[in-house]
């Protein structure tokens, strides 16, 4: 499946939900926030939210800033 993740095209295998996508990317769901096609995916819904070919995903976290 082809996704756009953080602006880059990426092929992802074996992920049908956002939770599985984070696992495939080795990301801790508690340390990131996910937007799927510009809609925030609430934490409790990560496992219930499906991803489809062509989806745009943003995965963000907190970094240093003023």
């Amino acid at each position, binding site marked *: 499946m082809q996704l756009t993740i953080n602006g880059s095209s990426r092929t992802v295998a074996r992920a049908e939900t956002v939770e599985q996508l984070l696992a495939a990317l080795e990301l801790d769901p508690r*340390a990131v926030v996910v937007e799927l096609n510009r809609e*925030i995916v609430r*934490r409790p819904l990560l496992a219930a939210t499906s991803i489809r070919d062509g989806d745009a995903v943003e995965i963000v976290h*907190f*970094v240093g*800033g*003023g």
Partner: protein
Amino acid sequence: MLEIGGTTFSSRLLVGTGRYRTNTDMVEAIDASGAEVVTVAVRRISLDRADDTGILHHLSPERYFLLSNTAGCYTADDAIRYARLAREAGFNDFVKLEVIGDQDTLLPDTAGLLEATRVLVAEGFKVMAYTNDDLITALRLEDAGAVAVMPLASPIGSGLGMINPFAIRTIKARLSVPIIVDAGVGTASDACLVMEQGVDGILMNTALAAADAPVRMARAMRLAVEAGREAYRAGRMPKREIAVPSSPTTGMIA
């Protein structure tokens, strides 16, 4: 004690976490500053390498109050989007709202700022609005429901100190919400002078991060903020343009 939007904070010094040369510098400087509120930014995670840029690797959310910002946003819509993402991280409902209007000066787009404030307040955010030192904008932000108004001392990262003490004093006198001066402080005397205007606190980042010795500067800033606050509360003596002797003028030997 400083109260903002119903939450009480132990320190009147709020600090940023950006631009430090090393994470050790950052952690030690923030510790030395005594700050409780630390600002953070929302950015894309790096997928291609072990990513230690995440601030939570270095600062404990149990110890610090994480205040996310919308730095780098040039429209109300972008700032709203970043604020929503930050809130989903689950720490608190506060946001340090920035809507920037110009790349060279990083001065705020006050129309966009007001628009974003209204939207976010309606969504239950506690908005701390970074703004310029214009009284009317500050009043409008308070009317829009901001829990704190954050006028600049001078442009972000400039270290020029407080350019317009009159404007800062006027904003403090006319608004009821806490006034946190944000940006422009360069060294301890700047911070002291800001606090002597009677404002409720200061947020700074580059003054610590870009000092030769950030930990030492953080200590200096902590003392300066306390000193300025104490001096303000003490009430300074009036300025006079003629000397007044402090020793008795009687009892002089002939």
